[in-house]
């Protein structure tokens, strides 16, 4: 019985390690882009640190998103929840997220809807 539990623990641990490795890879790529753009190098430890912090931030993000959706009586997290998550730093996200292609698409969709209705009303 104990062996099973141990095996489960190890499985969970190694899947988490795989996720961390995936995050680390992406962070590395992004830092490389910044390094090239700003002509500045990043130490390996710095990239590892940013990677670790990002991984840990995901825990906060996940919990918050889940709570936001639940608060709205939903079980599926949507873009409104994500935008709420980013509220604190308007200068960082407010504009940039709204300009993300996915938000632009939604804005256009709702605008189209409104136009259609005003035509019908006339």
């Amino acid at each position, binding site marked *: 019985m104990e062996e099973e539990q141990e095996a489960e623990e190890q499985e969970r641990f190694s899947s988490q390690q795989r996720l961390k490795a995936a995050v680390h890879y992406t962070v590395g790529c992004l830092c490389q882009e910044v390094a090239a753009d700003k002509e500045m190098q*990043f130490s390996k430890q710095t990239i590892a640190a940013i990677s670790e912090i990002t991984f840990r931030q995901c825990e906060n993000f*996940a919990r918050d998103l889940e709570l936001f959706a639940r608060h709205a009586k939903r079980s599926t997290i949507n873009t409104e929840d994500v935008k709420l998550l980013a509220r604190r730093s308007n200068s960082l996200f407010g504009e940039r997220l709204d300009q993300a292609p996915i938000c632009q698409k939604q804005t256009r969709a709702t605008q189209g809807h409104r136009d259609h209705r005003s035509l019908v009303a006339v």
Partner: protein
Amino acid sequence: MERASAGFRKELVSRLLHLHFRDDRTKVSGDALQLMAELLRIFVVEAAVRGVRQAQAEDMALVDVDQLEKVLPQLLLDF
């Protein structure tokens, strides 16, 4: 307007989030995943850029953990 830019894959973001959900029934819409991927990308780039600014202010040729530590508190507060 195609920027060849690195980013977080939706699948990775999904797994990262699901790792910490308390409720089994919680799901994430595809659009929300895409937005989260963008948010995470901005987070990482911001950390990197602030690290660079700190290193430049200190006349360093390299962003080391010392520089990152100095910009970390404000970065996390800005979130």
